[in-house]
């Protein structure tokens, strides 16, 4: 009890420091990415094994094959059945190849959708554990509809009626992570990262040089603090001193506390409210400017155009 409290206190200070210091230094983002990818870091099966006395894993999308990059099934979690979906990387070379480095194909997302539907049928909560460098870029995956599978998985997560919690436990990159990330509550582990693309991919495109990953990491700032500040995640889950890879049991215990609380809150909410709030949560996310120009809806019609107000002071002056 007291130890949990002191961990909480230290953690709050740590996060507060991260939030209130000026934009994270280059090393911060890069360190977070290295920690998020640490190969001793707990993966979904490590967490699920500690959360559940018993867990039944399910395999196959019933259309093409089984995708080992996604693990899912139903476990007994604190005396109740709960559905789990996780993105699983491998630890040694053979395992990593078997898991395809945690990069799911369309089969993986279709398998995940199977379990989402099962959770709806059984009316049990769903917990997703996100840890992927992105969805797999391969010719076969494209032919079998990688884009559509991700899109439909997102849509299913929006639609699903039961309480849902998504946790970014490692690296969450691109649509491959978001596909199972649209939940009532989104948590991120302290050293987790969540971004639009991996720093390597981003540097190859924006800097035209895959070697500029460090620069890209600093620019994307994919850290837990940034996600929290943007409202992309609802809470940051503390990790054991030095990172989750130092102590799997303690990392699972800390995440367990947060999960239990979120599930309890979500279960207490009327279903309609919960579903509406889930939609509103994602409907609101974003950052834009809205200028006041012209008549009530700033209408432009037909073959005419409007000069863009690139100077924000201009419309204000027209008061």
């Amino acid at each position, binding site marked *: 009890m007291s130890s949990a409290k002191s961990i909480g206190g230290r953690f709050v200070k740590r996060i507060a420091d991260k939030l209130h210091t000026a934009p994270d230094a280059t090393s911060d983002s890069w360190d977070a990415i290295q920690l998020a990818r640490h190969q001793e870091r707990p993966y979904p099966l490590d967490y699920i094994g500690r959360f559940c006395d018993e867990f039944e894993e399910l395999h196959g999308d019933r259309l093409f094959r089984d995708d080992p990059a996604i693990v899912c099934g139903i476990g007994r979690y604190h005396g109740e059945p709960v559905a789990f979906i996780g993105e699983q990387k491998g630890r040694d070379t053979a395992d990593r190849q078997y898991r395809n480095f945690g990069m799911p194909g369309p089969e993986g997302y279709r398998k995940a959708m199977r379990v989402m539907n099962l959770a709806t049928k059984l009316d049990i909560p769903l917990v997703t554990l996100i840890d992927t460098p992105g969805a797999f*870029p391969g010719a076969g995956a494209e032919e079998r509809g990688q884009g559509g599978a991700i899109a439909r998985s997102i849509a299913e997560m929006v639609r699903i009626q039961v309480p849902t919690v998504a946790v970014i436990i490692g690296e969450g990159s691109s649509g491959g992570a978001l596909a199972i990330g649209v939940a009532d509550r989104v948590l991120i582990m302290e050293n987790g990262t969540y*971004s*639009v693309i991996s720093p390597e991919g981003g540097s190859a495109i924006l800097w035209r040089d895959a070697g500029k990953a460090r620069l890209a990491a600093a620019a994307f700032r994919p850290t837990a603090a940034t996600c929290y500040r943007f409202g992309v995640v609802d809470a940051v889950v503390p990790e054991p001193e030095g990172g989750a890879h130092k102590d799997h049991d303690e990392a699972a215990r800390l995440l367990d506390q947060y999960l239990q609380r979120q599930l309890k809150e979500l279960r207490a909410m009327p279903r309609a409210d919960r579903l509406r709030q889930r939609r509103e949560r994602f409907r609101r996310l974003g950052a*834009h400017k809205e*200028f006041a120009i012209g008549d009530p809806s700033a209408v432009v019609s037909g*073959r005419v155009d409007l000069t863009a107000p690139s100077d924000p002071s201009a419309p204000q002056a027209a008061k």
Partner: protein
Amino acid sequence: MSQNPIQVTVDRLKRIAHIPERAPRKPADAGTCPKCQSHFSSEEMVANARVCTNCAHHFAITARERLDHLAGGHDEWREIWTELRASDPLQFVDLEPYPDRVRKAEQSTDLGEAVVVAELEIEGELCVAAIMDFKFMGGSMGSVVGEKIARGCERAIELGVPLVAITSSGGARMQEGVLALMQMAKTVVAFEEMADANLPIIVVLTHPTTGGVWASFAALGDFTYAEPGALIAFSGPRVIEQTTREKLPDDFGKAEQQLLNGQIDAVVDRRDLPARIGKVLRICHRPDLAAQPPLANIISQASGERMGRIADAVAETITQTLPKLPKKIADRVAKAIEPRGGDDR
């Protein structure tokens, strides 16, 4: 919810009621077909919807030119939410700062963002169209694109009409980091609202539609068409070749191939698009779903003067009903419709 979204709303409630100065649009340019070397003047280009009459090569087309084409060569479309602009949540700098890139794109395209949302009639059927323009930063989807598509859906629901989305995008706008990723979720949520309202969505995929756009709303159309030769993929051929060292065929991910893969309903020549979309809109026509009366429409079309008259009429109607209301509510309403002083909350 942990925090409020970052949203900069400048003076939304105090908009001035006058039609803004409108600059004439840049004239359409001439072009030479890269496949058969036929040359077309700008008039020919507009008349053919930028399709080569010799070999049917589809040139890139700007969003507003496409609107003209869909509206049947008339200029009867109304663009909405032109006032939304990108902000720079990450203070992002790659080879140049993000705001500079946006400004350059604004100047070179005459657009405010990579998507244009408009109300128009296609073959006489009213709809809301969201049309992406690849020339604006590769058609990338940032917060503004997500927001405009979501508002487009909400507008379609308000009017009770279908949505036509024409995509052309390299994917999520990386300069906005994780918030760009969230636009995928935002657009899907908006499409779900369309589903709840029983309204159909027509998606036309044009060259290229890749990444986060193809992996979100673009793949969720009820009717999904593609222009000939359009690249449709989650990962582009170059990324796949680099990652897997596979050599890909030239037609990889092209519309014709995606038709064989079962990912789209048909490949449609751009010149046939208005007729094809019009046909679907006619089949799906549901006057019972259309908003009656479209009050929002009336208000948004009104000039400042007419706006004032409408407001007076509404206020008068409310004043007449006041005596019939319970006192507590009546007081609140009366207070609300009182002419306001200088301070506007």
